[in-house]
């Protein structure tokens, strides 16, 4: 039982990363119907920007120019990086996606992949091949609750991710911008006729998606403090799986699918021999899709590639 609870805690933390990244992915996927294969690398860029900001702030503190406790630095880092990364997202949209708005979706998928490679290589050229260690902004404290070990980081990560998801949900459901986005997801062609600029919405979508990726990147840096230029690839593809599994344009769906993915990975490794983890985890996903061919929240629509 304790063993199970411990893994539940582990899965919550791991799942919240998948959920956060899948959320950013599903913003673009749900509203613009694009495969955003650069998303994993935007996550990487976000983590590196966060690293830069945090290091800079710590340096300022150490010179005595400003005084701030570590938690405040973390909050500032998250805020700044989210803003900066959202600009990166907007640039990616402008360069790689806007010119292809009327092209087949798969072409945009290829530009996404290529932008991803450029971001990785660019990072490699700028910073060299060494991995960087994310500054430890929070002193780890481990609580032992009857055999289940929980750290303050774990709590923080889950809380911050849930808060961000809630904020996004509120934004999409309550604001005018959110309404425009939902409308866009509903009908791509009619909405521009209603006086909503598709370019603005697309830019906003990318900005929000990238900001979420940056937040995920920093939280990742806090929990797993080793960053390297290629860290985003696997996350990008897994977010792709989660976003589609969750259904189109559904904040709740992507969140749940992200958590599901994390839970599957953790619990499969718990129950079965861990060498077979990928084999079993992906077989489960495959089976889910065989029996629920349209994911969890997706309506049975025919998603054709527009050729």
């Amino acid at each position, binding site marked *: 039982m304790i063993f199970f609870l411990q893994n539940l805690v582990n899965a919550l933390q791991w799942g919240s990363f998948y959920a956060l990244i899948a959320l950013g992915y599903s913003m673009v996927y749900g509203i613009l119907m694009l495969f955003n294969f650069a998303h994993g690398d935007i996550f990487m860029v976000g983590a590196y920007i966060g690293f830069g900001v945090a290091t800079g702030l710590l340096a300022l503190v150490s010179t005595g120019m400003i005084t701030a406790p570590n938690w405040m630095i973390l909050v500032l880092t998250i805020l700044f990086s989210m803003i900066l990364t959202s600009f990166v997202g907007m640039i990616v949209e402008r360069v790689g996606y806007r010119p292809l708005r009327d092209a087949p979706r798969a072409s*945009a998928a290829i530009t996404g992949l290529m932008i991803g490679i450029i971001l990785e290589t660019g990072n490699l*050229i700028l910073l060299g091949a060494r991995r960087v260690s994310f500054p430890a902004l929070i002193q780890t404290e481990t609580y032992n609750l009857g055999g289940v070990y929980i750290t303050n980081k774990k709590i923080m990560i889950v809380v911050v991710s849930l808060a961000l998801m809630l904020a996004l949900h509120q934004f999409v459901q309550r604001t005018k911008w959110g309404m425009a986005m939902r409308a866009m997801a509903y009908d791509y062609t009619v909405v521009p006729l209603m006086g909503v600029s598709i370019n603005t919405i697309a830019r906003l979508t990318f900005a929000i998606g990238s900001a979420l990726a940056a937040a995920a990147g920093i939280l990742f840096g806090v929990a797993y403090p080793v960053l390297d230029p290629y860290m985003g690839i696997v996350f990008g593809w897994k977010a*792709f799986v989660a976003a589609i599994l969750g259904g189109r344009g559904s904040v709740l769906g992507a969140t749940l699918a992200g958590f599901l993915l994390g839970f599957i990975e953790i619990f499969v490794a718990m129950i079965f021999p861990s060498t077979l983890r990928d084999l079993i985890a992906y077989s489960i996903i495959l089976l889910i899709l065989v029996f629920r061919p349209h994911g969890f929240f997706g309506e049975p629509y*025919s998603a054709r590639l527009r050729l």
Partner: protein
Amino acid sequence: MAENNGGGSVWVRTGQILTAFFSPIPLLGWLSGAVFAIFLEHIIGNSLAVLLGLPKIPVLFGFVIALKEPTLIPGAIAYVSLIFVIPICIIGRLSSPVTNLVAEKLLKLPLFFSVVFHVGILYGVLHFWSDISPYRVLTLKLTLIAVMMTLSLNVINGYMGEFSCSHPGFMALGAYAASVFSLVFFTKDRIFGEPLLSPVLGPFMFPLALIFGGMVAALGAMVIAIPSFRTRGDYLAIISLAFMFIVKSMIENLEVVGGPRGLSSQPNWANLPTVFIWTVLCIWIINNFVRSTLGKALNAVRDDEMAADAMTVNTRRTKMVAFLFAAFWAGVSGGLFAHVLRYVNPSTFGLQKLAEVLAMVYFGGLNSVYGSIVGAVSLSILGEMLRPLEIYKWIFIPLLLILVMIYRPTGLIAFKEFDVRSIVHPRKRDKE
């Protein structure tokens, strides 16, 4: 405005002159030009290279050498134009009356002869071109394998309009199955011990090994083909992605075939003629497939599944056949790949490979045999030629791809039929 037109007209006129100059050259003419160029390179290549200050014959049209040492650029350009560009153009044009005549005569026989004749000359050209350096042979082999792979992915992603991510998985299945086949039956090695049959038979049985590899891949494709009856598009994309991960993880756990250590010491049977013949076969069969009723049914399924169903297309059968067929060829290409490198390991068939194949398909052009050939050849050769750029290569190639996607969103040559007859057809007769 007027000046603009005037400026433009110079280009237009040069273009017209060039077109007029080149239009009477049939494929046979180009090939004979190439034959001449190749022999020229064999005879004077070395001395010309030395004369132009190059260390040796530029191996891939001068790129490899010129990018490394910019001072050699003029020499490399001079070499390429003296050996390749000028002779091919001149011989092609000069011989055009003869070659047109030959092409016309050949065309009177069944098409088969004409095609075999052309392909034979093409092979000769490639053979003697690559004879200069083993590096050319290897590059050529890997390029041909990439063509097969791209073509088979185009059947699913282009003709059927799915976004399939499972191709590295099919390739892995084919590579391992073919390797195990040739290792168990015809080779003495560490894992499987003494061969079951005489190794002398081996090279003759190599096609069987490849077909076996293809079959296993096709069998694996059932895992995706069956769910594809009920689901399409994005959901199928992640099913196929999951399949790729499953295959990789499965092979990693199969200690019999070496697990992550991989499988090595495959016999050296995949020489250039073998790879070439299989590639030609692959192009020929896939081209016939996509131009058949079944191929048209595929397009119908892509454009509107319900309408296709109403028009008596058996959508299930169509999808099933397409998946099995594409996977078969991916498996064959995997088998060749394993025998060219003489080593396979599961991590070769991962996300990196996937990005590579996808890029080739979409760069070349969807729904087109031409496009796949162009995409695979240009990206593989470009990858080799730009080696001296080192890390910047991975900025340059993606940028190029993005530009192509922006200006030609469906790829370089999309939706074009590969009509063999019109390719080997003689051009209009020279008036001279």
